[in-house]
């Protein structure tokens, strides 16, 4: 296991092509393509039941794929040599209930040749006060942090983190974010799932939005926000204005609507141009808007555009 050549820098840490997974008749992952670069944070986003965890578990070697190709550090996911090179944090469970934080990490560290120092890991993740507490008595957030610690104790090249900050308080979340950023800066590839869009926007170098087992969009969060959706301009004036003249002035792909009496919403892929046209149109008609504001769309807007707003079970 120990004499593996490192993955060439040109290869992605994770490459998934045409992945399909069915549970009975239900297709959970449907021809999914996914790539995660080395030394980068890749966030996989999607509503509940989108197929994120199943995808991760296939990449971790815990489930088999029905078809498609998965390469983890250039190897099939169940290649035994990957076990030391890949760190995994499961969405839940995985720790002996009667074993303390320190015991669990000491046990995990003993499985690797050059592990992290357990005491340092405990301190960085804010687990010092509960180091001797059996894991079944930990809070949800403490258990999450223990899961992160177990995933990185072996100094892996690639880390899978399934919802690493779910249920964490803001301080703990920030500590985990800092740790993930440190991992990235140190050359570790991080693939995580999250429901926190803000987390993905701030932390990820690459975002994959998936639903119904398929990739809907992927790219840098900034590019996704600017390319997938238009930006919004909102102004208030007299109710019942005829917007046809405005629509003719705006760049292609723009829309205008009176969202509520006297409140007008303009969406446009070129917000600065649209703002000029709206101002000029108002002047030409002698309209005096009482307010005019632009709204920067977020990754969350993109996510909701792509996956819809209906509740998922």
């Amino acid at each position: 296991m120990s004499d593996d050549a490192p993955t060439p820098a040109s290869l992605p840490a994770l490459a998934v092509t045409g992945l399909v997974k069915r549970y009975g008749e239900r297709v959970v992952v449907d021809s999914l393509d996914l790539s995660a670069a080395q030394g980068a944070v890749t966030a996989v986003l999607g509503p509940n039941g989108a197929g994120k965890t199943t995808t991760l578990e296939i990449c971790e070697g815990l489930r088999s794929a029905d078809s498609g190709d998965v390469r983890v550090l250039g190897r099939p996911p169940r290649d035994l040599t990957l076990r030391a090179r890949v760190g995994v944090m499961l969405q839940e469970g995985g720790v002996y209930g009667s074993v303390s934080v320190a015991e669990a990490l000491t046990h995990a560290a003993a499985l690797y040749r050059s592990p992290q120092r357990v005491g340092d890991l405990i301190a960085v993740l804010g687990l010092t006060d509960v180091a001797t507490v059996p894991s079944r008595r930990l809070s949800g957030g403490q258990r999450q942090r223990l899961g992160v610690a177990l995933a990185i104790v072996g100094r892996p090249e690639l880390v899978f983190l399934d919802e690493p900050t779910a249920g964490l308080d803001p301080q703990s979340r920030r500590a985990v974010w800092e740790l993930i950023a440190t991992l990235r800066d140190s050359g570790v590839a991080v693939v995580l799932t999250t429901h926190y869009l803000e987390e993905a926007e701030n932390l990820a170098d690459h975002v994959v939005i998936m639903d119904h087992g398929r990739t809907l969009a992927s790219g840098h969060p900034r590019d996704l926000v600017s390319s997938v959706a238009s930006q919004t301009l909102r102004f208030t004036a007299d109710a019942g204005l005829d917007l046809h003249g405005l629509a003719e002035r705006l760049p292609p792909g723009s829309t205008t609507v009176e969202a509520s009496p006297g409140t007008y919403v303009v969406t446009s892929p070129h917000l600065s141009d649209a703002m000029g046209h709206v101002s000029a149109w108002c002047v030409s008609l002698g309209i005096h808007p009482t307010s005019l504001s632009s709204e920067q769309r977020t990754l969350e807007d993109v996510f909701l555009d792509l996956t819809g707003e209906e509740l998922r079970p």
Partner: protein
Amino acid sequence: MSLDVRPKSAPAPRRRRVLAHARLELVMLLRNGEQLLLTVVLPLGLLIGLTLTDIIDVGGTTRADRLAIVVPSMVALAVLSTSFTALAIQTGFERRYGVLRRIGTTPLTRSDVLVGKSLAVLAIETAQVLVLGGVGAAMGWRPDAIGLLLMVPLVLLGSAALAALALLLAGVVRAEATLALANLAYLVLASAGVVIPVDKAPERLQPLLDLLPSAALAESLRIATVDGSVDGYLVAVLVVWAGLAIAGVSRWFRWE
């Protein structure tokens, strides 16, 4: 404080992995109060009680005669409690809480896990045999010298059969069912040819009881420590149980 998280991944040597896992399994087995009651307190209490009183007729009229029967019986009971009941319950909950699943993503291989578990079980059984044998000797137990040596392979064989049955149970049914079934099986197996020797059971049942792995172990230990000999039939029973259970484990054990 900051961590040096630059990748430096390599598995530890197998010996270190296995010993680390054995140590953890041992800690968990010893930490479980209910299991300690089954593995140490109960066999020791029965050893003293059945030797000094005649509440249960285990055979023998003198204290020496009774000790010759009771000590090997209690060794078999101790092996049953550790190799079967404690191992099944612990493994069942390891599955239930996703521990085995997570371990499947680490350098700890399945064979490392099984060897680690075996070492932990054997460490506890060694302590059990020493305690029971020591207390028995203090009370006047004088086993056959060759029989004492024969106890080692017999305990190993019986332990292998019972441990494989424990893993088969824990690897197939839910943890809660494993807990119930392992405790129920303990009570049934302990009373059927272990605490009470087979020859004290109704005559019609005796051939059936001899087919139970726990009874076969207890009876073979009694024969070995009294006569210094090995009963081939009972050993064959243990070998068949071990073979079937190991085959069942490799075919049906689910790691998650």
